[in-house]
């Protein structure tokens, strides 16, 4: 007697490795876009604070668009737009570009809030002590304002990390796409989605826990 042929192969340890690799890809895409996006966002926030024309009239509406249009639409739109202007982007790069701009638009508001949370009298005092404009910005505004908006920034970071799941729409195999592939093969959605969920939780929860502790320590 031969065993009946099974068409569906079950979940095996190799698949766990596959999911782990995909989790690293998720981590990589979010680290890349969050780092670049945060730096860009700080610059944008500074421009928004400094200049009424360049910031308020030109930059603010553009950043507003990134915040008011769903990420999925932005991704599909950019992925289809890039070849028109002769850019040959793979899904990973287009995902990074859009996520970066999205992060920058969120961080710019946070950064502006941080700059404005430092009282003008404080900045005048530091200027009258002989600090230059940049010294004042980096040694007075950054430590004080940064501390105020740190929780908001962490919120943005966590949000972008979770939203990076949407890059799967373009066909980039990150954690959620990988779990979908495995579901198609093994037909065990509950198990695989649970594992993917645990991976996401493991990426996101330590950051939020650490941030809330940090906040408490600063609040003292």
């Amino acid at each position, binding site marked *: 007697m031969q065993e009946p042929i099974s068409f569906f192969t079950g979940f095996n340890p190799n698949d766990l490795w596959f999911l782990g690799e995909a989790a690293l890809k998720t981590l990589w895409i979010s680290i890349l876009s969050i780092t670049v996006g945060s730096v860009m966002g700080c610059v944008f926030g500074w421009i928004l604070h400094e200049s009424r024309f360049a910031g308020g009239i030109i930059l603010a509406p553009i950043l507003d668009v990134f915040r008011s249009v769903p990420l*999925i639409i*932005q991704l599909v739109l950019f992925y289809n737009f890039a070849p*028109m202007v*002769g850019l040959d982007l793979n899904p990973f790069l287009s995902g990074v570009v859009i996520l970066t701009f999205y992060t920058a638009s969120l961080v710019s508001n946070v950064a502006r809030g941080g700059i404005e949370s430092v009282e003008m009298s404080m900045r005048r005092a530091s200027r009258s002590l002989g600090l230059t404009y940049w010294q004042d910005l980096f040694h007075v505004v950054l430590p004080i304002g940064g501390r105020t908006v740190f929780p908001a920034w962490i919120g943005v970071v966590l949000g972008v990390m*979770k939203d990076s799941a949407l890059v799967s729409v373009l066909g980039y195999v990150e954690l959620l796409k990988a779990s979908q592939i495995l579901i198609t093969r093994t037909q065990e959605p*509950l198990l695989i989605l649970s594992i993917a969920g645990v991976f996401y939780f493991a990426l*996101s929860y330590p950051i939020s826990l650490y941030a809330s502790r940090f906040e408490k320590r600063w609040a003292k």
Partner: protein
Amino acid sequence: MFDYNFHWRPVLKSLPDLIQAGLVTLEIASLAMFLGVVIGLCLALMRMNMTGPLKWFAVTWIEIARNTPALFQLFFFGFGLGAFGINLSPFVIILTGLSFNCAGYLAENFRGGFQAIPVMQINSARCLGMNSWQAYTRIVIPQVLRIVYYPITNQMVWAVLMSSLGMLIGFKELSGETQFFASKTFRVFEYFAVAAVIYYVIVKIVLGASRLLAMRLFRY
């Protein structure tokens, strides 16, 4: 540079359908927000006042909703529950997923709001002869709603944006309808550009309406 023929005419011809779908988006977001506010309020109260299993239920819900992507939650309700033989319709999936997510986020906002109200107020309400239910519904919750009004508005915008995930589970709201048209005509860029504009308008309408409501509600 641009060797792409834009075909705007068929897209504009299907504009009424897209706007109709935009109304569906608005409906699903409002419905999800309504459920989210009610459940989120319950979760916040459970998390602060209860002990034992109820508290852990609320904590688990909040942490899972906040630390995994919304798309993952939708997939879980869509595919994951299929393992138990529960097959939900796309409408129910997206409604459940969005409400689950919104409830988790709003619960934390509500918790912040409740903590901003001094305990002394509850004590004095109890001294005046109100029971606990009256003290909460007449003294605490009106003040909390005022504090969390802007976070709720924000969350409403998020709900509108997140409802675009319906595209991935086959629900025909704005982005689902857009993808349907786009895959029928292969004019992906044009359709998604129009969808982006409609989303932008919807978000602006939501924000404007909430601002008007705030002027009406917070006159005193």
